[in-house]
Each structure stands twice: as structure tokens, then as C-alpha cells.
């Protein structure tokens, strides 16, 4: 289950008719089971990169391979968790989670069992028959995680999934996503603009420059988990990464 991004560039026509280069020559290899954060200032094209990997957008140049197979559109092999709430509000929590299984034609009893399993995994066992509007933001994102995992994707893509949450919930969700990741050992690509978040979560941090988004550097971080956000290792990496971002923006 290896994810390969090969020379991906994205150009589009902006509002004033001029071509805008959002991404330039992005190449990246992610081995199975790794937790990778894509970090960059807003507008650097990190969400675009994730959407290209997900098959939701086509790159202008380059390609994305999953296990040697080119991605040419959205596929359940690449699960995605969106920043804004993407749950179907007319479906109960359990039916949201089993949506992908339903599409694949899985038997009713089997998909109920699988959905329950993932519901328990994200710690919402008691909310099977609740509707999304009855849940808090953090709970909704947990359901979204369960829904994305239920179809057993090779790679899980997360687009600033905790961006809309308050700081406390955000920290709790970060710990929880690591627990889930340790249990499932999925390959994770996690987009964020928060250096803190990336340092807490990632095996590797891909730092992008501001527009056009290029890879500034890939920082490897081997500090064992659970990490202490205030440890020397975390602080040093945070300083280093912040430095990279400032340089990338041409500022400070």
C-alpha cells in the first residue's frame, strides 16, 4: 500500500483570466502505515494537493499512484475526511458509517456489524441512532473518521479535519486520531496549517512554500508517541519548521 506522488503540478485560470500556478512539481513517496502531515501557510495549495491525491481534482502535470495504480478519480481505496462537516444529515450516525458499504453492495447484517465496529473504535458506541445535528463538532468528525475507515481504504486523507474545533477539543481529537491510527495502521496524509498539530502527529512533515506550492523540505520526526507537546524534541522541531515556513514566505 504505497502512495506515490509524481511531479504533480496544478495550474488554473484565476478570476482575472491570468493562469495561476497552485502547485509546482510535487513529488512524494509515502510508505505503508506512515503518518504524514502536509504543512503550509494558507493558500499554498495543500488542500489542492490532497484533493488531487483523492482524485477529486486532476493535476495539470504528473500523477498519483496507489500500489502502482494511477488514480484517475475518487475511489474508496482513498478515504477522505473533509474540513467542513460532510455527514449526511438525513442519515443516522450508524447509516452514515455504513454508507460506503451500502454503495459496495455489502449485505445488511454485515454492514451493520462493520459499522458498529468502527463506531466503537471512535468511541461513539452509544450514538448509533443519533442524527448528525444532535452531535458536537468533534463527535461529527469522529463519525466522519469512522465512515472513511469502514470501507477499509488503503490511505486516509484528512483535510484540516479539526480546523473548526476549539483548542481543547482539537487536542483531544489529535490524541484520539493517533490511537485510532495505532490500532488500524493506515497510511495517513494529514493536511494542516498548524505547526503544533503537525509536530504532535507526524512521522514526517512535508513543508510547502507559499504559492506556487513547492516542497520546501520534508522533516522526519522520530520522537516516540505519545509525545509531550512541551518536550525539548517537539520544541526544537517546532522552531525549525516555523523557520522553514517563514523563509518559504520570504518574510522574517
Amino acid at each position, binding site marked *: 500500500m504505497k502512495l506515490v506522488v509524481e511531479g504533480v503540478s496544478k495550474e488554473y485560470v484565476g478570476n482575472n483570466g491570468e493562469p495561476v500556478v497552485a502547485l509546482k512539481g510535487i513529488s512524494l513517496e509515502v510508505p505503508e502505515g506512515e503518518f504524514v502531515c502536509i504543512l503550509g501557510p494558507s493558500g499554498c495549495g495543500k488542500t489542492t494537493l490532497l484533493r488531487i491525491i*483523492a*482524485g*477529486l481534482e486532476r493535476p495539470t502535470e504528473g500523477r498519483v499512484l496507489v500500489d502502482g495504480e494511477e488514480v484517475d*478519480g*475518487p*475511489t*474508496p481505496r*482513498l*478515504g*477522505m475526511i*473533509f474540513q*467542513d*462537516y*460532510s*455527514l*449526511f*444529515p*438525513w442519515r443516522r450516525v450508524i447509516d452514515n458509517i455504513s*454508507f*460506503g458499504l*451500502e*454503495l*459496495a453492495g455489502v449485505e445488511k447484517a454485515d454492514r451493520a456489524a462493520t459499522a458498529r465496529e468502527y463506531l466503537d473504535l471512535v468511541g461513539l458506541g452509544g450514538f448509533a441512532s443519533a*442524527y*448528525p*445535528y444532535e452531535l458536537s463538532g468533534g463527535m461529527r468528525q469522529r463519525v*466522519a473518521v469512522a*465512515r*472513511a475507515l469502514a*470501507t477499509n481504504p488503503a490511505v486516509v486523507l484528512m483535510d484540516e479535519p479539526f480546523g473548526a474545533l476549539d483548542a481543547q477539543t482539537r487536542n483531544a481529537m489529535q490524541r484520539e486520531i493517533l490511537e485510532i491510527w495505532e490500532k488500524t495502521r493506515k497510511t495517513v496524509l494529514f493536511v494542516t496549517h498548524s505547526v503544533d498539530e503537525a509536530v504532535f502527529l507526524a512521522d514526517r512533515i512535508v513543508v510547502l512554500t507559499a504559492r506556487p506550492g513547492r516542497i520546501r523540505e520534508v522533516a522526519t520526526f522520530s520522537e516516540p508517541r505519545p509525545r509531550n507537546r512541551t518536550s525539548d524534541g517537539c520544541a526544537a522541531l517546532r522552531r525549525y519548521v516555523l523557520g522553514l515556513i517563514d523563509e518559504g514566505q520570504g518574510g522574517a
Partner: protein
Amino acid sequence: MREGFGKLWNGGGARNLRWAVLPILFLVAWEIAAILIDNPFILPRIESVASVLATPFASILGTGSLVHNASVSLQRVLVGFLVGAALAIPLGIAMGRWEFVEELVNPLVQIFRPVPPLAWVPLALAWFRIGLGSMVFIIALGAFFPVLLNTLDGVRSVKRTWIEAAMTLGARERQLLVRVILPGALPTIWTGLRVAFGIAWMCVVAAEMMPGTSSGLGYLILYSYNFSQVQVIVAGMIVIGLIGLGIDFCLRQVESRWFRWRELER
């Protein structure tokens, strides 16, 4: 004095009965006017209307009972309404989903929408002859546009994230339409259906006044007019109003039960 009235108006028990104040005043005014005018061909007394309403199964002037005529009208409106909705919903979804369909169809919609369904009566008679066919045509036409426009609105209100989430979970186009776009648009479509039913109900009564009709509430009213049975006309109007109210109530109930998520979703 004003304070006393305020107390009465806002008091615990009175609060639930406030809605009844104006209708009761209306009935009183009607009765007083009827007594003063003293001409049942202009304004019948309440009792004479009530006595027509009290015997809903009695045949009226040989045209069948109130219940019979009401059920005939209901059947017609249901057929016409279903035909109109069955055409409008798929077209609305197609227009909302594929831009080229909208570009293609929209000019015709804009041209035909302002034409009142009743303006089609002569053509309807020429094409479908007198009878169910022409009535269904008129009613379906009346129901068609509100359903179409609301369906279009509803499809446009479907969040892009829902569609993209479904795609990353493996949804193909047909699955997207059936499992995401349709349920996502359904609350808005339902509003359209409610509006459409109101219009369809008006259309059926008017359509039943077309020449050659021999049953239905619209016919009953027109027929009673020819015999100067004003109390039957008013009774017929009341039945029309009550049925319209009842059906709207049912549709609202469904709305508040099934589509609560639209209001509660942030």
C-alpha cells in the same frame, strides 16, 4: 380598562383560544349581514349553509352528495398532481445536476411559467376533449412549475462536500443521484409539492367549471348557481377550503417529522 383587556388577551387560558377570535367575529358579522340583507340569493343565513354541511351524504339537486363530489375532485387533483410532480422532479434534478440541461430547458420554462394554467383551457379541450384528460392536463400544468423550481433549488442547495464525500466512498453517478442529491434536495422538493398541491386544488375546482363536466365540487358550485342555491355554493366553498387546509396540514406534518434536519443542521 386597557390593562384589563391585556390581561384577558395574554392570560393562560385565553392564549390558546386567541386564534378563534377573528373567525367567530367573522361568523357573527356574516349572520348579522344576512339578517339585514334578508335575501338568501345574495347571502344565505349560516343555518341554511350548516344544514347543507350537516347532510354530506344527501344528494344535492340530483348531482350527487357533497362527499361524492369532493371525492371526485380529490381523485382528479391527485392524478393531475402526481403527473405534474412525476414530470417535474426528474427534470428539476437533471436541470440542477447538469448545466447543459438547464441551459436547454430554462428558456421554455421561463416562457411558459407565467401563463396561468386556466389560459390553457381552450387548448386542453381541443386536445384532450371534455373529461378527465383535459382536467388532468390543466392540474398537472399548475403543479408542474412550483415542483420544478423547488426541485432545482433543492438540488442546488445540496452541499458539494456531501457529493464529494459520497464520491470518495465509491458512489457512481446514479448512486449520487438516488442516495445523496435526491435525499439532500427532498426537503425543498417537499415545499414545492406543498405549494403545488395548493395550486392544483385551485385548478381542479376551476377545471370542473369547464363545459361538459358533470361532477366535482367546482361543478356543484356552478350548477347550484344556475339554480340560485347560494347556500350550496357557500357550503361547497367551505368544503373546498377545509380539504385544502387538511391536506396542507398532512404535508406539513410529514415535513416536520422527516425533514427536521434542514432546520437543525448548522
